[in-house]
Structures are given as structure tokens and as C-alpha cells.
């Protein structure tokens, strides 16, 4: 016996420590899933400590009449062990969700206290402590209370006496008055406990309309039509610490929604007789009440058909057809088909496995025909069907299940008269008919005979919708190419252009065809035009003809230290410097001396273009003179040509590229370019008399 008690004591220490540990660190512990079934044994196990404890208690109470001390002590020991185990199992069970956290907290505490007290009871009896009776009373109380709370958690509150009390929980009845159905229930749950026939805090009684209308010691509780001046609202809106705040701190508070309902009702005139149905569907009060009592018609839909097996769902899924649950735990499924090229009608047929569960289906852009729609006829719960941009003509629509609520046919070229096939769809609410080719008259006729269906016709451009075209764009992104070509992304657009600096419009200027002929450099203004559209803005494009890249280059004269570019390779990197940012190391800047650049190329060329920058505002002007020297060795260069770029005038504003081309017929290997900056800016310039910059970039060969 002693040995048993010794072992049992150790077990008790261990289980109780474990219990405390689990209780304290509960939130941090995760119960391994294989232990979860143990938790479910809690409701079974709990009968043992209760039964054994009561047996021990009886023996203890009757100890005067026969020697039951030992057996009673032993029974208390067993009760202590079983209650510790029961509590442990209970903590495991508590990890599952779904219990009222408040009640659960008390029950957990109760379980621990019961376990510890039963242990103390055993110790008290076996060690003959003087406080023995008090501990026993304590543990008995703990056992009863904990057991009771546990019972309420499992069976619901007031389970025992339920048969005596009337079920007065009312269900919201939309046919009743606003006061009875929405206002009084709020007062009842949040105010009535202190303001009733028996308890008249602040001399206020809310239990009947007549009592309520008498008001309290501060007068009437509301002023019809003026919520902000009504005591009930004012007090509810006071800070919770305020003495006058209602309901008082510590009592269940009004929710924001409840407060808004009270406020709106008072503002509505606090009509005690107004029926709920008299409120307009868009009325704020009605919406608030609907939110509070969840009577709104667009409440989340529930489905009563059974769920498909997960193997069936998996079986109908493939990379081009995604079938998934609408939401967690919902039996309803949706299916979407993707990638027209990979459409397989068999995967549509396979959806018959889940035909009962399928409520949404998208076949948009899939090459399905009217015949294929027959497959859908057995999808008895299908609600949303998307057939946009399919090959159907509409004759197969008569096969659709009448459960359909939303049908999209946009972009599918339907035949005339097929809307009649939709007559069987008695649940249809929305129909999308954009770009179906069905004429206005037929749609109007359909709408007239089905006024409850929302027919969406979509955007149909009218004559008023004339918008401006975007400007043409260059075929080559940089304009550095062998040909000057423009394009426009819209079909049937004409492009007109002018190379002489004049402004083209829809009648003036050359009509663009294939390419714009040019020598080596071209600034061209162009617009795009099309019937039914406004002509685009005029845009200027710069082209540099370039057929190949030169081999190497040397700077004979150094550029200014501020604008050294990337050295000699600046002029042969096939990149044009940024117009707006001449500091970006793509430009060679000269001011004090002439630019002298030597280039070598073995390629066969018929000319070259020197590109420069025009930016009078930044004192960057075209060179006054450009010379081209050429020859077959560095030493034997001869002057091939001298050109004088057009001088800028006061009207030449802005920043744009310039270029000067030298065509030649002979084959050369070495080329030297000499470009001379303006030594004195002209009188119209703000820096008149000062030196101007010359900015040179790429030298193009063609």
C-alpha cells in the first residue's frame, strides 16, 4: 500500500506540475495531432474524479460510524490523480476552437484549482492536517463549480433549468415595427438590467413604452428627430471614463452599429409605430438594421447540396482548367478554362463528375461551339456562366440549365433572333451582350419582355466620341538606322510629313509611304490621320542614316574639361546623347578651340554625318563651319568639303539635334572633322558677344 502511495505521490507531483506548465504556456504550446483524440476523452474521464471524489467524501463524512479513513484517503488519492489527468485532457481539448473563451477561461482555472485542491485533500487526510475539513469543503466547492461550468460549455447555458424557463429569444421579424424588432432588443440587452420595473437607476424604466416615455430624472431620454440632443445618445457618446457614460464602465457596451441604429431611429422621428417594411430599401436605418439582424437579401449564399469528393475535384483539374471551391468549407465549385490553344472539350465533359456542385463556369475565349453547350445542360446548379468571345452563334443557349443567374456573351458573334433561346432561363438576372452583333431592336424587344433582367450593352462608340490619334512613332527606336521609317500602331492610319520645317496637316504635306528619302540627317515633322478620329499632334523626328560603325577614333583637340564625353569613342558608339541632359557624358563640348576629330574606317561608305546639339538657351549653338578632311593615311589628308550649318535666329527655340552630312564618292580610310564654334553670340542672344559652345556627338557613316 505504501509503495503504491509513494509512486502515486510522484505521479501527482508530475501531473500537477505538468498541468500548471501547460496552463501557463498554453498559447505557446501546440498539441501534436496524435494527442488530439486524447482531448476528446475529457468528457468521459471527468466522470471518474467526480464519482470517486463523492464516494470518498461520503466515506469521510461517515468516518464516525465505521473505520473508513484509510479507504477514504485512498479514494481521495485516486480522485486527485484522475482529476489531474482529466484537467490535462481538458487542456488538450481546449486547443480545439469553438468554445466561448470567457466560460472556457473559468473552466480551465476551475480544473486546475480542483486538481490541486484534491491533491491537498489527500495530503491533509493522510497527514492529519488540522485544516482538513476546510480543504475538503474547498475542493468540494471547486469540483461542483468546475463541473457546472463544464456542463454549461457542453450543453449550453441554463441547461438544467431550461425546461422551466421560457425561450424568449425573439427572431427578427421584418413585418413588425422598427421599435419592437430593432430598438427594444437593443435596450433590452444593454439597458434593461438597470432600468426596469425592479431596478430604477436614475429613475428610469425602459421595460415598457409608457414607462420609457416618462423619462428619467434628467427628463425624456430622447427628442424625436434630434439624436444629438437626446440624452440616450449623448450619454452613450461620452468617454467611457465619464460618470454619465451609459452603459456604465464594466457593463456590456453598445456596439457602434447599435448606437448608429438608435441615432438613426431618433433622427427618423422616433416613431414607435413605424413598420420596418415602410422604410425604403436604400434607407440608412433599414440598412443598419439589416446589418445588425442580418436580413439583407444579399446575405452570403449557402448551398445545401453535398460536396464533391476531393479526388473528383483533383481529377477534373488540369493546367488549362482550374476547378476550386468557392470558399473554405463550401460545397460549391467554380471552374475556369484558360489558354484557347490548349482547349480540350473532354475536360469540359469531365466536369460532369462535379455537375451538381459547379456554380460558376468560365469558358471565355475558348473555341467552343453551340453543340458543346449541350454538356452544360446537366449542370443543375450553375449560376454564373461566362461565354465571352467563344465561337457560339447562340442556337445552343436553349440547352442551358435554368438555374443560371448571370450569363456573359460579350464578344461572341451571335445570330439574329437567338435571344429567344434564353426564355427558359427563368432565374436570369444579368445578361452581358456587348459586341455580340445583336441589333438594338432585338435587345430592346428582349428587355421589354424581360424587364427584371439587367441587360448590359457596354460601350458603343458614337459620333460624339471623336478622340485624337496619337502621333506616329519611329520604326527604329533611336532614329539611327539605314532608313527613315515611321509607323502607327492603329490600322488604316495615314501619316503625313514635311521635311522643310513647315507643319503638315491632314491635307498638307507628303503622304508617307514605306520610307522618307534623305541624305544623311533628317529632321521631319509628321502627323497621323484617320477617318472618324482627330488628327494627332505634330511630332518632330530626327533620323541619322547609319549603315555601319567606324573602327576607331582619336581626339586631335581636347574638348573642354566640363564636357569630355567618354573620350574619342563618344563619336563612334552608335548612341546619340540625350537632348535634355547635355551633361550626361555623351557629348563632347568645345568652346575655346575648334573640335578636331580623326576617325578610321575600312568600310565602304558614301558619306558621313556629324551630329551636334542646338540649345541656344544653354549657349550651345551649331558650329559656324565644318570641314571634312579625308585620305588613305593619317598623313595624307586632303580637304574634301566645307559646310556652313544654318545659323540660328531668334525664332529657333528649344533643344533639338542638328546634323551636317558630307556625301563623297571616293573610298577613304581616314577622316578628319574640324568644327568651329561661334566666337561671338549674335546680338539677339541673351549672351550676345560671348563665346558659344559646340556640342558634338556621334559621327555616322552611310
Amino acid at each position, binding site marked *: 500500500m505504501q509503495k503504491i502511495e509513494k509512486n502515486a505521490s510522484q505521479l501527482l507531483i508530475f501531473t500537477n506540475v505538468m498541468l500548471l506548465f501547460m496552463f501557463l504556456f498554453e498559447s505557446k504550446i*501546440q498539441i501534436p495531432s496524435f494527442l488530439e483524440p486524447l482531448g476528446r476523452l475529457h468528457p468521459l474521464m471527468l466522470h471518474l474524479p467526480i464519482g470517486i471524489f463523492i464516494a470518498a467524501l461520503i466515506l469521510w463524512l461517515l468516518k464516525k460510524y465505521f473505520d473508513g479513513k484509510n479507504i477514504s484517503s485512498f479514494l481521495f488519492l485516486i480522485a486527485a490523480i484522475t482529476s489531474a489527468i482529466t484537467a490535462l485532457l481538458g487542456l488538450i481539448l481546449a486547443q480545439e476552437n469553438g468554445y466561448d473563451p470567457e466560460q472556457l477561461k473559468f473552466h480551465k482555472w476551475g480544473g486546475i484549482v480542483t486538481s490541486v485542491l484534491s491533491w491537498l485533500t489527500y495530503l491533509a487526510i493522510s497527514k492529519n492536517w488540522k485544516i482538513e475539513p476546510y480543504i475538503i469543503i474547498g475542493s468540494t466547492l471547486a469540483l461542483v463549480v468546475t463541473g457546472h461550468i463544464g456542463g454549461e460549455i457542453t450543453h449550453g447555458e441554463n441547461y438544467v433549468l431550461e425546461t422551466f424557463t421560457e425561450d424568449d429569444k425573439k427572431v427578427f421579424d421584418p413585418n413588425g415595427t422598427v421599435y419592437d424588432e430593432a430598438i427594444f432588443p437593443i435596450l433590452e440587452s444593454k439597458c434593461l438590467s438597470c432600468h426596469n420595473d425592479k431596478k430604477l437607476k436614475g429613475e428610469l424604466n425602459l421595460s415598457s413604452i409608457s414607462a420609457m416615455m416618462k423619462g428619467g430624472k434628467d427628463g425624456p431620454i430622447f427628442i424625436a428627430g434630434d439624436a444629438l440632443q437626446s440624452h440616450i445618445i449623448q450619454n452613450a457618446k461620452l468617454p467611457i471614463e465619464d460618470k454619465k457614460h451609459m452603459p456604465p464602465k464594466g457593463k456590456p457596451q453598445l456596439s457602434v452599429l447599435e448606437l448608429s441604429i438608435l441615432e438613426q431611429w431618433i433622427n427618423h422621428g422616433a416613431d414607435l409605430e413605424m413598420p420596418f417594411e415602410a422604410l425604403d430599401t436604400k434607407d440608412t436605418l433599414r440598412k443598419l438594421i439589416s446589418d445588425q439582424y442580418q436580413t439583407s437579401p444579399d446575405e452570403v449564399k449557402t448551398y445545401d447540396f453535398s460536396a464533391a469528393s476531393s479526388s473528383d475535384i483533383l481529377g477534373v483539374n488540369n493546367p488549362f482548367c482550374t476547378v476550386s471551391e468557392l470558399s473554405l468549407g463550401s460545397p460549391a465549385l467554380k471552374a*475556369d478554362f484558360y489558354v484557347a490553344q490548349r482547349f480540350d472539350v473532354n475536360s469540359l465533359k469531365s466536369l460532369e463528375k462535379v455537375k451538381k456542385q459547379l456554380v460558376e463556369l468560365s469558358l471565355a475565349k475558348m473555341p467552343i461551339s453551340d453543340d458543346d453547350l449541350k454538356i452544360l445542360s446537366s449542370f443543375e446548379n450553375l449560376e454564373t456562366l461566362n461565354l465571352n468571345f467563344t465561337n457560339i452563334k447562340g442556337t445552343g443557349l436553349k440547352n442551358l440549365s435554368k438555374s443560371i443567374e448571370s450569363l456573359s456573351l460579350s464578344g461572341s458573334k451571335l445570330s439574329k433572333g437567338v435571344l429567344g433561346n434564353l426564355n427558359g432561363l427563368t432565374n436570369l438576372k444579368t445578361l452581358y451582350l456587348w459586341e455580340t452583333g445583336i441589333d438594338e431592336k432585338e435587345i430592346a424587344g428582349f428587355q421589354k419582355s424581360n424587364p427584371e433582367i439587367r441587360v448590359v450593352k457596354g460601350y458603343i462608340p458614337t459620333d460624339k466620341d471623336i478622340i485624337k490619334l496619337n502621333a506616329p512613332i519611329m520604326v527604329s527606336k533611336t532614329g539611327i538606322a539605314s532608313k527613315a521609317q515611321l509607323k502607327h500602331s492603329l490600322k488604316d492610319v495615314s501619316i503625313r510629313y514635311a521635311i522643310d520645317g513647315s507643319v503638315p496637316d491632314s491635307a498638307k504635306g507628303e503622304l508617307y509611304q514605306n520610307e522618307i528619302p534623305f541624305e544623311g540627317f533628317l529632321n521631319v515633322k509628321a502627323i497621323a490621320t484617320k477617318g472618324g478620329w482627330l488628327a494627332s499632334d505634330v511630332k518632330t523626328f530626327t533620323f541619322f542614316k547609319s549603315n555601319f560603325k567606324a573602327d576607331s577614333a582619336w581626339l586631335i583637340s581636347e574638348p573642354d574639361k566640363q564636357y569630355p564625353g567618354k573620350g574619342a569613342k563618344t563619336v563612334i558608339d552608335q548612341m546619340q546623347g540625350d537632348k535634355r541632359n547635355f551633361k550626361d557624358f555623351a557629348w563632347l563640348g568645345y568652346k575655346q578651340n575648334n573640335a578636331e576629330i580623326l576617325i578610321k574606317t575600312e568600310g565602304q561608305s558614301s558619306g558621313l554625318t556629324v551630329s551636334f546639339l542646338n540649345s541656344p538657351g544653354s549657349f550651345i549653338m551649331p558650329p559656324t563651319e565644318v570641314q571634312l578632311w579625308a585620305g588613305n593615311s593619317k598623313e595624307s589628308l586632303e580637304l574634301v568639303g566645307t559646310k556652313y550649318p544654318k545659323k540660328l535666329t531668334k525664332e529657333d527655340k528649344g533643344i533639338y539635334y542638328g546634323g551636317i552630312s558630307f556625301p563623297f564618292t571616293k573610298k577613304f580610310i581616314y577622316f578628319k572633322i574640324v568644327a568651329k564654334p561661334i566666337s561671338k553670340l549674335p546680338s539677339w542672344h541673351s549672351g550676345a558677344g560671348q563665346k558659344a559652345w559646340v556640342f558634338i556627338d556621334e559621327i555616322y557613316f552611310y
Partner: protein
Amino acid sequence: MNKEFANNLLNVNRRHFLGKAAAGIGGIALGSLLMPDLFGGKKDLTEGLPLGVPHFAPKAKRVIYMFQNGAPSQLESFDYKPMLKKMAGQDLPESIRQGQRLTGMTSGQTKFPLMGSFYDFKQYGQSGAWISDLFPNMAKIADDMCIIRSMNTEAINHDPALTFMQTGAQIGNRPSMGAWLSYGLGSENQNLPAFSVLLSRGRGNGQGVYSKLWTNGFLDSTHQGVLFSSSEDPILFLNDPDAMERASRRKMLDNLAELNHLGFEKNGDPEVNAKVEQYEMAYRMQTAVPELTDLSKESDATIKMYGPECLVPGTYAANALLARKLSESGVRFVQLYHQGWDQHGNLPNEMALQAEDVDRASAALITDLKQRGLLDETLVIWGGEFGRTNYCQGKFTEDNYGRDHHPRAYSIWMAGGGIKPGVYGETDEFGYNIIKDPVHVNDFHATVLHQLGLNHEQLTYKHLGRRYRLTDVAGKVVSGIIS
């Protein structure tokens, strides 16, 4: 004899058993305390809620977020403040400013001269929303829009504010909204990335966008946003090289996957598997993407709706059209950024250019989704990272001005996806402080997740010892904008 033998075999007698069982259970408890994932498997990551399916019936299935990068001024778009015009040039009253934080760009100003909108406003739609003349096309869809005039954020500079809007944190290491959705809901179309990003640049003063804005953060890298190129080929290097057959590509991928699998068995790095998945996705994209980028099937009416710019790759209009095509093809989250909204100066001119870029195409996207029956299931969001000040930056001049950053109130709009059209929230007469229904960025995130059927408190990922959410420890669903 037999008994001992059996005992020895089991190495257990009654005492042993009790002792060991006790120690065992203790050990289990301790073990799970130290390593909570020990027995949980996948379940732990979301506290028990499975991934890839909405927590409750969703209103929206997809999101298109048209981010106006740089912060468009609310005072020239959706928050009409005639008072500012009346008091133009006068100093912002201290009772309104209340010493609240300013950026370094204007905190040195001695005067804060108020400035009204250069552009007029008119009322549109059933809600009578005030919309500026800069956005005539958006005004036409006023009945589909829910304008929120009471957005507020915590950051005052672009990068943290932008990062906050996108990831729920100002420091860029958390997953972006799109990554969270990809993680929580999975991909609808396995042939395309669930999270796609499209960039365009306007003509106004611009601010950068960086890949951290569409990062997967600590989530699996399959949830990362895929940036589409703004060239004519939105996804570069997607085509097989010449002379490579589809079958041999397949074989190559299979062999590569085998090698990667060996690697995974050795080092256990989950990124190896993510990589394999991405190769597979790229393979499937080879078939799916050409359909997407083919604009030849778009009708003339569609082009007219978006404006002809939509045919020029890299423009906002082209991205809006592509966004519709991606979303229609089941891409969960399409993120657009349009740069150039940072008008510290020259606001009247620059904002007109910016508005011209986005107005028509933004409205067209709504109309287009609507006529395809997709607006109900697609949540469209339009807006920037914060607002702009009601006073002008620098000295007051009558005809030109700029506005500094203002995080305390700004306007965005949403459409579709179960959002109730109308106007929500209100600022004071000066447009400086919110006086009704504030919507914090965290609330905005909570609401977006809610519309997609996700409880923002339940969508979590455990990382570095704690659970993270898009809304972190804040956020309330804004029920006032939900229909």
C-alpha cells in the same frame, strides 16, 4: 523465463512504463514548446486555415491596382475645397496645422500660403461626387467609383510611403500585397504568374519604383511579382531558340528537374523546388503569353475606349489594356505603376499631362470589365502613396504653384469587387485633417483582403519566430465601403 525475456525485449515493466510515459509526455510538451512546428506540419503556417482557398465567400476574385506613383494631389482631383480658393495666398491657420510634421522641403518656410485648385470641379453621378475637370472620363464612371477622401498614412516621403502602401510596412522586407494574395489564394491560371507588375512613366516629375515593392519578402519566391517589360515583347526571352523543338525543351526541363531534385534531397533548400516550379511556369507561359499580347483581336471600339496610345507598348493605356487581359486570364493581382505625379512645382501643367495619360485608360478599364461581366469579381484600385499640402511649396504666385507631401489626408478610389460606389470620408474645409471616417493604410489592406475572402488576421506566415500579417498588428475592415 519467457516473461523476463519479453520484459527484456520491451525493456519495460510497470514502473518503467509509468516513469517513462511521464518523462515522455513531459518531453513532448517541452519539445513542442521549443519547436512548435515539430508535429504540426504545414498546418502551423496559417494557424490551421488551409491555403489556396478563400476563408469565406469572396466578393472579388482578382485585383488590379493602378498605382499613381509620386502622389497625385487630392486637391486637384477628388477632394474639392473651395475655401482654399477663397483664402488663396493667406497663411494656413495654426489651428489647422497644429504643428504637425512637414518634410524638409517646406518645414523651413515661414509662410504657408494656401492655394486653391487651378482646375474647376463639378459634381457627377448619384453620389454627387466632386471630380476635377482634369479627369473628364473618370467622371463618367462616377457611379461605379467609391472615392475615399480620408486615406491617411504614416510616412511622409515617397519610398517609405510607397513601401507602406504595397507591403504594410515602411521598411522594404515584407511581402507585397500581391504576394500575400498569391500566397493566400494561389493562382487561378497556372500558366501565368499570379502577381504581375507593369510600369509606365508619365511626363511629370517622377519618383523611382524598385523591385522591393513587388517582392515576396519572406514568402516562397513563387509569390514574387513578375515585372513585364515595357517593350513590344512584354516577357523577354520567352521564345525557344531557333531549331529547339518543344519536345526537347520538355525533356531538358524534366532532366533538369531531376538534377534539382537530387540537389534538394541533399541540401533541403525549399528555394530549389520554387525554382523548378518557376521553370515549369515559364514553360507553360510559352503557350499562354502569345494569346495575351496579341492585340489584333481587340475591336476598334476597344481601342477607342482606351485611346490609341494603348497600342504603343509601355504607355499607361497599353498597360491598362494588358492589365485587363491579364486579369481576365486569371492573374490574381495586376500591379500598375504610373510614374510622374510628384508635383512640387509647376503643378497645373504637369498634372494636366499626367491626367491626360491616365484618365481615359483608367475609366476604360472599368467600362471594359463591366461590359464583360467581370467588374463584379475584380477589385480595381486607383491612387497614390499620400496626398499633397493645401499650401504651396515656396513663394506664392497666382498662376503656378507646387505642393509638398501630405500624409494626413489623401484620396483614392476603388471600383468593382463588392465595393459600394459613392463617396467615403471627409476632410476639413482646408483639406488638411480628416474629420470623418478615416481610413488608415492598414484598414485599406484589411478591406482589400476581406473583399477577396480573406480574414486579414488569419492570413499569417511565421518567420523569425513570429507570425506576420499584411496588416501586422493593426487594421480594421472598412465596412462602410462594402456593398
